[in-house]
Structures are given as C-alpha cells and as structure tokens.
C-alpha cells in the first residue's frame, strides 16, 4: 500500500516536471466566428512553428458567442463577421480596437439541369429572385440576360442559410444596397425573415451547397472558398460599373482595395463601384482591448503578424482572400494603438 503510494507520488512528480517547461510558453485564447476558423487554424499553426513559445487556442463558437466571451474577458481576443456595434461596445469593460483580418465573398450557386454555360444575373434580378417577384427560370428578365442559354420552364427555389451567419449578413447587406424594397421590407442581418414564397433554409455552408446540388431549379449563396474548393458553378454578376464579374479571390480583393479607409463604423464594401470588383463581399474582424489585462505584448505580436503580408499569405492557401496592401496598412495602424 505504502509502496504503491510512493510510486504514485513519484510518477506525479515526473509528470509535473515534464509539464512545467511547457507551462512557461504563453497560450493566447480567442473565440468567435466560424467563418475565420479554417484561416486561423492554418495561420496560428504556422505562427507556432516559427515561435514555439506561443500557442493560440481559437474556438469557433460563432460571432455572437465570441463577442460575449470577449466582453466577459474570458478570452484574449474575439473574432466576428460583423464589427461590434455601439451597444455592444458600451457593454464591453474597456475601449475596444476592431481590426479587419480577412475577406470573404458570397458566390451565387445554382442548379439548372442541361445548362452548362454560366448564367448571368444583374443585381436587380438577383434581388427580385430573393424577394419572390421573379418565380421562374424562363422569366423574360432572366432570359434577356442569357440569350444563348435555353432556360427551362422551372420554378426557382430560393435557398438561404438557416443558421445565423456572416455570409447571410454580407448577402442581405448587398440586397439592401441594390433594392430599396428589400431594404424596407427585409433589411440587413445574420438572420432575416426571407420573403420569397419558395424559400428553403439550410444549415451551414455545406447545407446550402448540398440543397442546391440536390434540387433542380435551386439558387443559393455560398461562401467563395467552398465554391472554389468544390468546383461548383456560380453565376456571373453585373457590378455597379456595368461589368460582368465572377466571384474569385481577385475580384473580391478588388472590391476591398477600392475602399482603403475601412473602419469598424464604415465597413461595408458590398456593391463596390470598382470596375473589377465583385459586388457581394465583406470583411471579418478581430476585436481586442486597447489595454489588455495580460499577455499584451504576445497578443500584439501575433495579430500584427496575422494582418501583415506573412500572415495574410496563409489566407490564400485555404482559399480565403488576403487583405489588400492598403488595408493591411490601415489594420496595422489601428493595432499600434494597443498598449503593450
């Protein structure tokens, strides 16, 4: 009995000795947006390879949860697809810095059996489809834009995200910009009341993509990275400048680059007037306290690396859109206000 107890104490001491040096390394914690997760897990892994004494533990619990955890000071930083608004900032225990970290776009995927050429849609037609005023694929307004395509006499089934999501926010923000009726009837948000009579809600990006794939006549907005990785067909949209634009990392970046003065109160880049800009795109944000309670130096180093060119390089490899150069500069300038 005594011997086994002694052995037990010994092994505990060994375990403690082994874990002590590791405890000297700094662990930063973050929580929030699930959109950011693939990019963050890649970028923070690379950062840890270069700086083995710093690990970042990021939990993708959703933007709302991220803001709540950040406000309660349970995490060092939060991540959100929409910047914290005035009310949320007032509830935070200290001044907050909001920094853009990555870009995303929403591609318009569709399922039209027998149609192989990519279809073209104007901003107004897309809004009318989601409002439920255009109900069939062979509607004259769609046919007019796609003269070479033989559009089927098929009901349009409108697919949207059923879970609250940043992609829905960007998409409804776009619709509010291009349609006064949408703005007054529905509005902009992560979850809205979808007006089209044939609308179907699907959970998650993969849910919308799956629903579109398995339903002839369906149309839906899907995160760009997902469309690129799964080689899905997406519609070509007419932008504000009257150009026909596909959803690619380059066109999303072009929309962002045309507005370098992006800030947490003026962040919308949808319906960009840039000639080569894709109209449905937006930023994702990291929030930190101006005066962090602890680990300020490490937090600053990680985040300034993340928004710099080295960190942004990792966005490209997971089909996210790196911040344009001028926005990287603006993000770094905001971050320098942090007291460390």
């Amino acid at each position: 009995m005594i011997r086994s107890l002694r052995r037990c104490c010994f092994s505990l001491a060994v375990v403690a000795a082994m874990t002590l040096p590791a405890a000297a390394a700094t662990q930063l914690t973050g929580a929030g947006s699930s959109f950011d997760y693939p990019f963050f897990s890649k970028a923070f892994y690379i950062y840890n390879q270069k700086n083995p004494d710093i690990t970042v533990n990021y939990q993708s619990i959703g933007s709302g949860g991220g803001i709540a955890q950040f406000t309660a000071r349970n995490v060092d930083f939060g991540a959100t697809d929409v910047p914290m608004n005035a009310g949320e900032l007032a509830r935070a225990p200290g001044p907050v810095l909001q920094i853009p970290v990555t870009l995303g776009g929403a591609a318009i995927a569709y399922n039209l059996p027998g149609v192989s050429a990519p279809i073209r849609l104007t901003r107004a037609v897309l809004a009318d489809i989601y409002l439920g005023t255009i109900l069939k694929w062979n509607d004259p307004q769609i046919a007019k834009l796609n003269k070479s395509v033989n559009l089927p006499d098929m009901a349009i089934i409108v697919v949207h995200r059923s879970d609250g999501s940043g992609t829905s926010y960007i998409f409804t923000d776009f619709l509010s910009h291009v349609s006064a009726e949408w703005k007054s009837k529905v509005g902009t948000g992560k979850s809205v009341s979808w007006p089209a009579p044939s609308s179907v809600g699907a959970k998650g990006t993969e849910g919308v993509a799956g629903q579109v794939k398995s339903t002839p006549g369906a149309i839906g907005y899907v995160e760009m990275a997902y469309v690129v990785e799964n080689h899905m067909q997406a519609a070509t949209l007419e932008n504000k400048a009257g150009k026909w634009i596909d959803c690619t990392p380059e066109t999303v970046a072009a929309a962002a680059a045309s507005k370098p003065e992006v800030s947490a109160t003026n962040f919308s880049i949808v319906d960009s007037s840039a000639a080569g800009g894709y109209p449905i795109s937006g930023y994702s944000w990291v929030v930190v306290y101006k005066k962090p309670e602890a680990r300020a130096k490490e937090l600053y180093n990680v985040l300034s690396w993340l928004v710099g060119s080295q960190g942004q390089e990792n966005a490209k490899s997971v089909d996210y859109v790196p911040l344009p150069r001028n926005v990287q500069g603006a993000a770094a300038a905001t971050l320098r206000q942090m007291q460390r």
Partner: protein
Amino acid sequence: MTVGPQFRRVARFVSPADRGFAAVVYGGSILFALLIVGLFVELVLGSWPSIVAFGPSFIWKSSWDPITSKFGALPMIFGTVMTSLIAIVLAAFIGIMAAVFLADFAPRWLGQPLSFLIELLAAVPSVVYGLWGLFVLAPFMRTTIGPALQHVLGWMPLFSGPIYGVGLLTGGIILALMIVPTVTAISRDVLVAIPRDLREASMALGSTKWETAIRVVLPAARVGVFGACVLALGRALGETIAVTMVIGNRPEISASLFAPSYTLASVIANEFTEATTSIYTSALIELGLILFLVSMAVNALARFMIWSVRGSERV
C-alpha cells in the same frame, strides 16, 4: 414514489451500510428533481425579458423576424408537434410489428442478430441521419415518394403543393427512423416477458400463432408497449440536428406535408450562436421553455393514458 410498508418496518433496525445506501438512493432521486426544477427556473429567468415584451401572444403569433424583433412561436410549435406525430405514427406501427416478429416468430438464429442490428441503429449519431436525409432521402422524396403520394392523394390539401424534397414529411420520416429502435427494443423485451402460460392457453383454445400474438400477447403487454412509444416520442420532440437538416427551416404553417417547416429545437440550434441582441436571445430561450412545456404536456398525457388503461383492467 412511496416506500412500501415492508421496507418501513425494517428501516428501524438498519446497519450503517444500509443507511448509507438509503442516503445514496434518496440523494440521487432528489438530485434529479432539483435538476428539473433548476432547469425550469433557469429557462423562465432567461426568457423573462421576452415574456414581458411579447406576453402570451408569443405563443400564437407567427412572425419570426430578428431584424425588427418581432417574434412568435406558433409555426415552430406546429412544426415540432407535426413532425413528432408523423414520426410516432410511422414508428409505432413498424416498431411494434417488428417487436412482435422478434418476440414470437423469428427463429433464434435470425432473432438474435436482428435485435442486435436494430439496437445498433439507436447508436448512429443524429448528424449521420441528417446527412443521409439531406443527400439520399430528400432527393428520393422529391423524385419518387412525393409524386407518388400526390398522384394518389393529391386531392387532399395534406398532399398538395410543390414538392421540395425537404419539409414536414421528410422531417417526420427521419425522426421515425431514429425512434424505431427505441420502440422495437423495449416492446420486444416487454413481449418476451409475457408468461408462456398465456400463449399456451391461447393455443390450447385453438388460436393460430398470429391470433395469439396479436389478440392475446400484445394486449397483455400494452402498457409496456405504450411506455416504449412515449419514450420514443420524447426523443422525437427534442431531436435537433437531423431534423434541422431536412425540414427546410421556414417559419410558416402550411397545410401541405411537403412544405418546408421549422421546429422549436431547430430554431435554437440555428440562431442561438449568432443572436446578439438580448431580446433575441431571450426569445430563443423562451422557445426552449415552450419545448420543455410541450414535452411535459405530452408526457403527462401519456401517463394519464397509461393510468386509464391500467385502471380499466385493474392490474
């Protein structure tokens, strides 16, 4: 639960070990009661802002618009009750018939592995059912089952309208698949426990095997079989992920079983993580409270039915 007199008499002479045992069992049951009460209190507290803001009209309003903060739970209550109803009707019929087969007809070499397989179904994670529903069942509903039903029964509003693949009926079928193992496994155990004498007496009176199983054994086991169905219904009411993936998530009440719908649990799963305003969060918690009350009501109703069945035969 009351303690039987035979235990009370002994209780005075117990050893410390017995007393310890009594503490453990009493403690356990009190803990569970406290858990339920705590859950209820927490739900009421969380949903209080919403209860104050919307009042009782929350239950019969049918708009769900987070932008303008107009919330009503009726479409979700409808969706929850309808999918569970479809599920229990399908699952009870199929599940009980399977249980009768396994208990009285299947030869040993078939019955054993078959029971094992059915119980294995209960261990499949619900997200797997959901994915299967989205990629296999929903397209099959849209191309085959839906049109066939509409061809025969299309004159009823229940089977009219466009077929999306996802919707109330698909949600109900997925749920039925998920709860069949519960119905079958418990019913089979109950049927096997019915004394052999009953079967032998019935056969001796000239009944066939089928008559014995359906007219004698099944009625004798009806309280237990009914209990199995109640347990399964409870699972159906609260099931979230699989239903969310195939129900279409539209907060609307439609007469057609093919139309997209929404359930209480699905809304919470979909919107809770990104709900930012406090009234929105509170409205979602009130949905949870309503789900809690609906489950309680269903369970109470089921208990009442069991009691009335028991009472009539004075068991």
